[in-house]
C-alpha cells in the first residue's frame, strides 16, 4: 500500500502542506504554553525571590492555558477535516473497488499520523525556545522576578503530542466516517453532495449549548465578582460551538431566504452564490466558524481584560475615602497627622507571601503543594477604618489589629467552605508557615486584592508600610498637598492615584495581551488556510458551471459574493456570541448592563475577518474556475 499512499500524498500535497503548517504552529503554541505552565509549577511557589516579586507565572499561565488548548485543538481538527474533505469521493471509490471500511480508515489514519508525527516535533522545538523569548515581557509585567529563566524540559513536548495526536485521529475518523460505514454505492452518492439533514443528536447538542451559553452568561447577575465573570466569559465559547454544530441549518436557511427573495432583476452571480451556500452549507460553516471564533475570542478576552482594569479602578475609587495618596513611611505618616487640614491618615503597604485557603487534601497530600498561591497581601497600618472601605460583608477590619488575623475577599472564599472564623495558611518569604484567622470578608477584591492583614499578623512590621492615605478637611486639600510636597514626599489626589493603578494594571496585562495576540494570529492563519483549502477543492464544481455557460467574470463575482456572505455571517455569529458574555461580565464587574468593549480591537478583528475571507477565497477559487476546462 506504500505506493498508493505515496502517490496519494503527492496528489494532495497542497492541502497536506497547509495542514502541516497549521499543526506546526499549533504544536509551537501548545508547547510554549506547556513551558510556561511547567516552569511555573516547578518554581512558582517562591515568594523566596530576592526582590519580593511574587511568582504569578502559574496563575497567569493556567488562566491562559485552558482557552488556548481548547481553541488550538478546535482549529487543528477543523484543518484536518477540511483537508480530508476533498478525498471523500476517493474513499467512496476505493470502497466500490473493493477496499473494506477498515482499510480506508487505516489509510486515512496513517496519513494523518504521518503529518502529526512530523509536524508535532517540528513545531515543538521552536515552541520551547519561543517561550524563552517571552521572558522579558514576563519580567516587565511583574509576573516573574528579573533574571528568571524558564525551565526547558521534555514534558511540554510530550504533553503537546498527547493532545495533538488524539485530536487529529478523531478528526480523521470523522472525516472518513461515511466511506467506512455505509455501503459503497451509498458512499459514492453521499460523497457527491452534502447530506442535507443534521442528525438529531447534533441538533439537540447545538440547542443545549445555546441555552447553556446564555444561561452561563447570567451567572454574574447572581454571583458578582471575578468568578461570575469567568463563567460569563466562557459563554462565548459555548455559543460559538453551538453555532458550529447548528451552522449548516443556519447557513442553508439564510441562503434559501435570499434565493427566494431575489427576483428576476437581481444579480445572476449573487443568485448562484446563494444557491451554492444553500447546497454546500456544511462547507460554508467550516469556513465561517474559525473566523467567528477569531472575532469572538478576541472581543471577549479584550473586553473582559479592559473591564477588569476598569473595575479595579472603580472599586479602588469607591473604596478609598481619602483625598490624597502620599508615598510615606510609617514614621512620615505619623508626621502627616500633624499637618493642618489633615483629618485622618491611614498607612498601607504590601506584603508578598504564599497563601493557601483550601483545606488540606487528605487523600492526596502531594497535591497540597499546588494549592499554595503566591499573592500580594495588602498590609493595613493604623487608622485604616474610615479611609479604606473594601465593602466588608462580615466581620470588621478593626479586628485586624489583633494578632494572627486576616481579612479575606468574597472571591477568594469561592469554592471553599471557608468563612468568618476559619483559618488561612500563610507562608512568608523565609518559608515560615502561620495560620491566620479570618475576621472579615469583603467584596472589593479587584481594588484591594484578595487578602488584607494588619500589623498584628506578624507577617511584616512597620517597615513595609509605604503609602499614606490622607483624608483632609473640606476645602483644605490643596493646602495640604502643597505642605506635603514641601516636605519632599510624593503626593497625588486619589483620582490620580487610581489612574496610576489603572495604568499599571493595564501594563501588567501586556503579557496576557501578547499571548492573546499570538493565539488570535494562530486562529487567523488556521482560518485562512481552511478557507483556501476549501476553495481550492471547488475546481470541479466551478468547471461544471463554466461548461454550463457561466462566464469567468460571473464566476469570480459569484465567489466574491460567497466570500462576502462568509464574512458577514462570521461577523454576525461572532458578535452575537459575545453579547451575553460581555453583558454578564460588565454587570458582574462594574454593575452596568452596557457591555464594555475594546472598540479598537473589535474594529481590527472585524477588518481581519473581512480581509481573510476575501483574500483566502476569491483568488484561489477564481484561479481554479478560470483555468480548468475539464473536471
Amino acid at each position, binding site marked *: 500500500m506504500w505506493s498508493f499512499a505515496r502517490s496519494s500524498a503527492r496528489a494532495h500535497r497542497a492541502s497536506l502542506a497547509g495542514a502541516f503548517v497549521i499543526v506546526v504552529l499549533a504544536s509551537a503554541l501548545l508547547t510554549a504554553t506547556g513551558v510556561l505552565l511547567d516552569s511555573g509549577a516547578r518554581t512558582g511557589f517562591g515568594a523566596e525571590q530576592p526582590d519580593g516579586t511574587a511568582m504569578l507565572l502559574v496563575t497567569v499561565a493556567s488562566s491562559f492555558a485552558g482557552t488556548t488548548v481548547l481553541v488550538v485543538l478546535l482549529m487543528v481538527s477543523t484543518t484536518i477535516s477540511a483537508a480530508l474533505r476533498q478525498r471523500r469521493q476517493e474513499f467512496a471509490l*476505493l470502497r466500490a*473497488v473493493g477496499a*473494506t*471500511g477498515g*482499510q480506508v480508515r487505516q489509510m486515512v489514519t496513517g496519513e494523518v499520523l504521518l503529518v502529526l508525527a512530523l509536524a508535532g516535533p517540528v513545531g515543538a522545538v521552536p515552541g520551547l525556545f519561543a517561550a524563552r523569548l517571552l521572558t522579558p515581557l514576563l519580567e516587565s509585567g511583574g509576573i516573574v522576578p528579573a533574571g528568571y529563566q524558564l525551565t526547558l524540559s521534555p514534558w511540554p513536548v510530550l504533553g503537546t503530542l498527547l493532545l495533538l495526536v488524539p485530536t487529529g485521529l478523531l478528526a480523521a475518523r470523522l472525516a472518513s466516517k461515511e466511506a467506512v460505514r455505509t455501503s459503497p454505492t451509498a458512499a459514492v452518492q453521499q460523497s457527491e453532495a452534502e447530506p442535507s439533514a443534521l442528525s438529531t443528536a447534533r441538533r439537540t447538542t447545538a440547542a443545549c449549548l445555546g441555552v447553556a451559553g446564555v444561561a452561563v452568561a447570567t451567572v454574574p447577575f447572581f454571583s458578582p465578582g471575578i468568578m461570575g465573570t469567568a463563567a460569563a466569559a466562557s459563554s462565548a465559547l459555548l455559543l460559538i460551538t453551538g453555532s458550529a454544530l447548528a451552522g449548516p441549518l443556519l447557513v442553508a436557511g439564510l441562503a434559501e431566504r435570499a434565493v427566494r427573495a431575489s427576483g428576476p432583476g437581481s444579480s445572476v452571480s449573487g443568485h448562484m452564490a446563494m444557491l451554492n451556500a444553500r447546497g454546500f452549507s456544511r462547507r460554508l460553516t467550516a469556513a465561517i466558524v474559525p473566523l467567528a471564533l477569531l472575532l469572538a475570542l478576541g472581543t471577549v478576552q479584550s473586553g473582559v481584560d479592559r473591564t477588569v482594569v476598569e473595575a479595579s479602578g472603580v472599586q479602588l475609587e469607591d473604596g478609598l475615602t481619602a483625598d490624597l495618596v502620599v508615598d510615606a513611611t510609617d514614621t512620615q505618616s505619623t508626621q502627616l497627622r500633624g499637618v493642618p487640614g489633615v483629618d485622618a491618615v491611614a498607612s498601607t503597604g504590601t506584603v508578598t507571601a504564599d497563601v493557601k485557603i483550601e483545606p488540606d487534601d487528605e487523600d492526596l497530600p502531594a497535591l497540597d503543594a499546588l494549592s499554595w498561591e503566591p499573592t500580594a497581601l495588602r498590609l493595613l497600618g493604623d487608622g485604616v477604618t474610615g479611609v479604606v472601605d473594601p465593602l466588608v460583608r462580615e466581620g470588621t477590619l478593626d479586628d485586624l489589629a489583633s494578632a494572627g488575623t486576616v481579612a479575606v475577599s468574597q472571591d477568594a472564599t469561592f469554592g471553599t467552605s471557608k468563612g468568618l472564623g476559619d483559618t488561612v495558611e500563610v507562608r512568608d518569604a523565609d518559608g515560615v508557615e502561620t495560620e491566620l484567622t479570618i475576621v472579615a470578608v469583603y467584596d472589593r477584591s479587584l481594588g484591594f486584592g484578595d487578602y488584607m492583614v494588619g500589623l498584628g499578623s506578624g507577617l511584616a512590621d512597620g517597615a513595609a508600610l509605604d503609602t499614606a492615605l490622607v483624608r483632609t478637611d473640606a476645602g483644605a486639600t490643596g493646602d495640604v498637598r502643597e505642605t506635603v510636597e514641601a516636605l519632599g514626599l510624593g503626593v497625588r489626589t486619589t483620582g490620580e492615584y487610581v489612574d496610576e493603578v489603572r495604568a499599571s494594571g493595564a501594563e501588567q496585562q501586556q503579557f496576557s495581551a501578547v499571548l492573546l495576540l499570538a493565539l488570535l494570529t494562530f486562529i487567523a492563519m488556521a482560518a485562512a488556510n481552511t478557507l483556501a483549502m476549501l476553495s481550492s477543492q471547488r475546481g470541479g464544481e466551478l468547471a461544471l458551471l463554466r461548461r454550463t455557460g457561466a462566464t469567468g467574470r460571473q464566476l469570480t463575482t459569484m465567489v466574491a459574493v460567497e466570500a462576502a456572505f462568509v464574512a458577514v455571517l462570521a461577523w454576525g455569529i461572532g458578535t452575537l456570541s459575545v453579547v451575553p458574555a460581555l453583558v454578564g461580565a460588565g454587570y458582574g464587574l462594574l454593575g452596568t448592563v452596557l457591555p464594555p468593549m475594546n472598540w479598537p480591537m473589535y474594529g481590527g478583528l472585524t477588518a481581519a475577518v473581512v480581509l481573510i475571507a476575501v483574500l483566502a477565497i476569491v483568488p484561489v477559487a477564481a484561479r481554479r474556475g478560470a483555468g480548468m476546462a475539464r473536471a
Partner: protein
Amino acid sequence: MNAPSAPSSQSSPSVSPAQAAPHTAPDDGSLTAVRLVQVRKTYPNGLGETEALRSVSVALRPGSFTAVMGPSGSGKSTFLNCAAGLDVPTSGQVVVGDVDLTTLSADDLTRFRRRRVGFVFQSYNLVRHLTVAENVQLPLLLDGRRPDPAWQEHLLMAVGLQGMEDRLPGQLSGGQAQRVAIARALVTRPTVVFADEPTGALDSRTGQQILDVLRATARELDQTLVLVTHDPRVATAADQVLFLADGNVVGHLEAPSVEQITAQLVASGR
C-alpha cells in the same frame, strides 16, 4: 436457458408484470452463477420511501451473457448493484455461486466482491493519481496479493492498452479509461462480471470494441457476464435480455433480434 414462463419466449412484447413469474432455476441442484430471490430495495425519500426494486427474482446460468434493459428509473443499476454486492437489498437473498451475499458481514462482502466479482462502472471510477497499471492492480493490492506481471500484460493487451502502463487517467480518452476499468474488473479473474452501461459514453466503434473484449474474456475465463445497456444492438449479442420497468422484471427474451428488443422496450417503456 432459463425456463420461460410466458407462452412463447420469442413473442409477447406485452408481458405484463403479473404474467412474468419469477425466473427461478429448476430445483434440480444445477448451479446458478447469480440468483436473486425476491430481492426488494427501497431508499428513504424524505418522509417516505422509493421502491427501486420490487421483489425481483432472477437466476442466471454460469457462463451466460445477460443484458438488462429498461427505461430510466426502472431499477437497472440498483439491480446490478444488489447482484454484485455493492448494495445490500432491503429484503430477499442474493446468491453468487454458492454464497448468499445477504448473510455476509460488510467486510466479508467486500472481500468476496473483490475476489469473485468484477464490476465495470458507468463512470469509470479510476483513481486519478494512479497510473493505468496501478489502477488495474488496485483490487489485488487491496487484497494483499502480489500482482502478476504476465497476467497484467495479457489483460492490457486484450483491452488494447499495451504500452500505456504509466499513463495517468487524465491523459486517457473516454474509451481508453473505460478499457482500463474493464481490465481492473478482470484482474482478479472473477467468476461473474457486471457492467453498468460500459459503452454509454462511447462512440459506436469503441463501444463495439469494448463489447468484444468483454465477451472474449468472458469466454476465455468462463465467466458469467451481466450487462446493463440502453443500446439494442449491444443487447443482441447477449444470450438473453431481461427487461425492467418500475422495479419489476417485465419481460425476458432469448437471443432476440434488434426489432424484438425495440418492440419490448417500447411496450414496457410506456
